[in-house]
């Protein structure tokens, strides 16, 4: 077990040998002077390696992947700040120091590119900002995409699934968009509907936190879905899990939702793991070659209000 302090968020190195936890400590426990740090742990031994002091302005938020992330080259860790003005603290891992604070007005969450030191962010006006850092961790380039989504009528969940530079996003009403975030400006690659017109009538919507997962081959998407959804129901745990074929846009199957609020595939894609948002249990399904799910394990009380799940293998 690793302590994550107060409302710690985490990310891994590209080799998955290091775990980075951005967290906060108050000198009197629940009050007093605030100290923010990035703590580096070894993922094999779970041992503490070193820490880097951060400006005390990181977002103390529920866990999402984009709140702390590592650049593709493994050189920088990006920490989301909210004072509540938004910016990104760039930590240089070699020098073990903060390299810069990147102002990112109106944008939130870091989505790193596979190569180099580049990341994108979703912005409140429906655009995607892409920021490229130089060797020193300073902003080298900043570009805004065309409007990718309508934040007022059909916002995107902040959770994104990623394979290299391919990123998938799901909207509150169930539009699936694939973007390429490898270049200096974000590009839309594909768009499919997760929810048919008929299901839309019954109010089927995606919901949860880490509320959908894409398998490591990029073929199928599994989403946590609930019916009778409406404005404000976007965090409701799943009534059903829907499996979508990304190439054809067809729904392959539905499974009992088991209260899923967060889910992820194992790295080899043979397991699907989910956190039950109602009971704190973890559920594991075996995934066969055709993408069918077979429920295997239920771990009761796997965490208290755990919302972020990553697979070690």
């Amino acid at each position, binding site marked *: 077990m690793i302590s994550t302090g107060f409302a710690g968020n985490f990310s891994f190195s590209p080799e998955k040998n290091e775990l980075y936890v951005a967290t906060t400590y108050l000198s009197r426990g629940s009050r007093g002077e605030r100290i923010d740090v990035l703590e580096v742990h070894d993922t094999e031994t779970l041992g503490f390696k070193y820490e880097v002091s951060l400006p005390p302005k990181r977002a103390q938020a529920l866990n999402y992947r984009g709140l702390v992330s590592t650049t593709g080259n493994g050189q920088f860790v990006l920490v989301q700040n909210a*004072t509540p*003005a938004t910016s990104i603290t760039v930590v240089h891992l070699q020098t073990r120091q903060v390299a810069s604070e990147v102002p990112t*007005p109106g*944008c939130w969450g870091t989505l790193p590119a596979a190569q180099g030191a580049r990341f994108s962010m979703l912005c409140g*006006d429906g655009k995607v900002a892409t920021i490229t850092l130089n060797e020193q961790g300073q902003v080298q380039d900043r570009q*805004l995409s065309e409007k990718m989504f309508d934040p007022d009528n059909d916002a995107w969940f902040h959770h994104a699934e990623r394979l290299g530079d391919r990123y998938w996003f799901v909207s509150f009403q169930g539009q699936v968009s694939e973007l390429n975030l490898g270049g200096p400006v974000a590009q839309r690659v594909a768009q499919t509907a997760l929810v048919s017109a008929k299901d839309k009538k019954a109010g089927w919507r995606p919901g949860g936190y880490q509320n959908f997962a894409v398998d490591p081959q990029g073929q199928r998407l599994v989403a946590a879905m609930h019916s009778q959804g409406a404005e404000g129901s976007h965090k409701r745990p799943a009534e059903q899990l829907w499996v979508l074929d990304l190439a054809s846009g067809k729904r392959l199957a539905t499974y009992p939702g088991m209260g899923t609020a967060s889910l992820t595939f194992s790295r080899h894609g043979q397991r699907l793991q989910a956190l039950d948002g109602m009971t704190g249990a973890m559920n594991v399904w075996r995934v066969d070659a055709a993408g069918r799910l077979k429920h295997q394990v239920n771990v009761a009380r796997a965490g208290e209000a755990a919302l972020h799940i990553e697979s070690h293998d």
Partner: protein
Amino acid sequence: MNVSFTFGLDPLLVWIPTAWPAALFAHAGVAKLLDRPLFLQHLGAYRVPSRWLTPMQNALPLAELGVAALLLSPWRALGAAAAALLLLAYASAMAVHLRAGRRLDCGCGGAPLPLRWALVGRNAGLLALTAWASQTPVERAMSLADHAVTAAALLLGCLLWVAFHQVLRQQRPHRQSFLEKH
């Protein structure tokens, strides 16, 4: 020493309040042109409607540079009026978001700084300055010493400006209680 009382303003009392906003707008315009994508992001954060984003991204920095130039031209009063308009527009935009409870990055240049009422007050103070800048001073030749005083005042103004924002950045965000907000 011969002290004379007149009803006009000494040129220094016009030149210094002119130099400050001129330097401010020149710097603001150049900074916006040097990082156009960041400025666009700020406009987006201020919820400027999509169709106005690009026109404003182009027009505002030019307007700011124009104001700076006008302030230093014979049409100083016109420059002061335009500066007042811009300051009023920015203060209104900040006030609208503050009233709505949104603490976005103010876009004041440099490290991020969340919106707060002190920044609206700052603009009100600058508005008063532009009123001075629009005045016609009494006839008095500016000596070398006068120019030196203006330059020193400009430098001091820059320092105060930076310090003011730095103090705001260091302040812990005040957490409003639910009752205060509603």
